[in-house]
């Protein structure tokens, strides 16, 4: 393995230590060392906004901690849900007396740990409302949306809910806008190469050279099909088609577009994809309000990219445009 690590069993500890040092102006370590807390949190009278997830997706999840974004984040092992206690401690750090929304992705471990965290919090009088992200189109059919995984659309959900909470909205309203945001998101991943958990030491799946996996998940979950690798323009067209065919959007709808690398894809290739992505989206009569290109939500050193399209209404657009101050650029 050609990796910058010390001990493969302490990758998360070492990541968190370096992260907190780099961004000490914005974040601090919680009293539970598996919780990252925004310097400003908790804000009395403000709904706390938290998330949590496995590590290895940096800058997600921890990088979105900050002003007008997330108040606290529970940190899990690589690709593995944080503990119930870490979710609970994140809620405790974020609680300003108005309750907490936990906005996380639809994975078996996260679902169970959040469920238990809600019970722990209730004992201390902290109310946790949840929204479970399920924007990954290829992870289940349109009739089984509740089975779909959450991927990069989570960032849009955090952004809109974080801004809404900062305006002073109550728990029900913050939860509702987070739900609307994720309901308006559709995502697709395309994988060109696998990734390796350092403690395991070998790739967690394989993609034959010259092929690509369409619909791949954020941990290498298999996609819907393996195809010969095609020119970027054709891949981009396929990604847009999958995302928008699942998304019944009227012509003239404004959208936000996020193209994220999965870890080992050069950023210039994301721009190559985006050239066709924007052309295709415009070709469908949609208008792009904002485009984000970069490594926003990765999967260790996976080669590949994800596309997320969020349909905007006036409120989502306003909230998306609110300035944030967090370690990840957004």
């Amino acid at each position, binding site marked *: 393995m050609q990796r910058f690590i010390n001990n493969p*069993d302490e990758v998360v500890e070492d990541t968190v230590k370096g992260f907190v040092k780099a961004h000490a102006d914005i974040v601090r370590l919680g009293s539970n060392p598996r919780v990252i807390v925004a310097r400003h949190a908790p804000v009395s009278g403000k709904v706390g906004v938290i998330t949590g997830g496995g590590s290895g997706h940096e800058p997600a999840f921890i990088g979105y901690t900050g002003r007008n974004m997330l108040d606290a984040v529970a940190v*899990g*092992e*690589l*690709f*593995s*849900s*944080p*503990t*119930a*206690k*870490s979710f609970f401690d994140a809620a405790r750090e974020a609680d300003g007396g108005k309750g907490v929304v936990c906005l996380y992705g639809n994975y*078996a*471990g996260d679902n*169970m*740990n959040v*469920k*238990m965290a809600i019970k722990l919090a209730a004992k201390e009088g902290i109310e946790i409302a949840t929204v479970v992200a399920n924007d990954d189109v290829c*992870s289940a059919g349109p009739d089984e949306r509740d089975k779909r995984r959450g991927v990069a659309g989570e960032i849009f959900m955090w952004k809109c809910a974080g801004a809404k909470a900062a305006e002073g909205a109550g728990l029900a309203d913050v939860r509702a806008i987070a739900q609307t945001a994720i309901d308006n998101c559709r995502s697709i991943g395309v994988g060109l190469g696998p990734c390796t*958990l350092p*403690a*395991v030491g*070998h790739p*967690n799946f394989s993609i034959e050279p010259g092929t690509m996996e369409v619909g791949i*998940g954020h*941990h290498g*979950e*298999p996609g819907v099909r393996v195809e010969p690798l095609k020119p970027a323009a054709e891949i981009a067209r396929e990604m847009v088609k999958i995302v928008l065919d699942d998304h019944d959007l009227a012509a003239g709808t404004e959208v936000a577009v996020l193209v994220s690398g999965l870890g080992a894809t050069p950023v210039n290739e994301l721009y190559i994809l985006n050239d066709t992505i924007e052309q295709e989206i415009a070709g469908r009569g949609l208008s792009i309000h904002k485009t984000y290109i970069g490594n926003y939500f990765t999967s260790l050193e996976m080669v590949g990219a994800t596309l997320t399209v969020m349909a905007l209404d006036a409120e989502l657009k306003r909230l998306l445009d609110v300035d944030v101050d967090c370690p990840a650029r957004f």
Partner: protein
Amino acid sequence: MQHFDNASAGDIVLSVADRIIENRAYLSEIDGKIGDGDHGVNMAKGFGMAAERIRGNDMSLAAAFDTLGTVLMTEIGGSMGPLYGVMFTQFAETIENSSSIDAKTFSTMLTNGLDGIQAIGSAKVGDKTLLDTLVPAIDAFDSANAGGKPFPDALDALVVAAEKGRDGTKDLVAKIGRASRLGERSLGVLDAGATSCALILKALALGAKQKLQLSAAAVR
């Protein structure tokens, strides 16, 4: 009625932890075929941490289960942390007020553990999970009891059924968790959770049998 003392029986949990730690690489290897390959690593980490806290403290079985359940729930995360965490915590709560454990208490304990798992997870028997080991094991234990078999024989029946259930996961398609994304491709491979569950149940049963022998000898 055959029974063993709850007090000082915490060493049974140490032998459970030993089996998990011995099988660290094996469990990860199975998991790697259809999952992340970190099952053994995470299980060994949690059971090892719990063993350190139990060892040398002359704990009751209830206290040792509670220690293990709490460590798994608060330190391990993933899916296995809460699932096994809740199971062992339920075991502990069931027996905490029993000075001795007979077959009936043991059965209630197992059933409460299963109920705890089903309250937080959404898997069913046949979904290729640890339930495919646990559910038939409890059924076998209960029917041996109902048939008038002695406690040690019922424990043997539990182990046989657990291992049969584990082996049966080879022929199942994963319906839940990360392996479920593989669909048919998950056929032919053991489920890692079902495998670790069989190890746990076997170590528990052997530990309980040993205690029964000791208490029978003491009575004599």
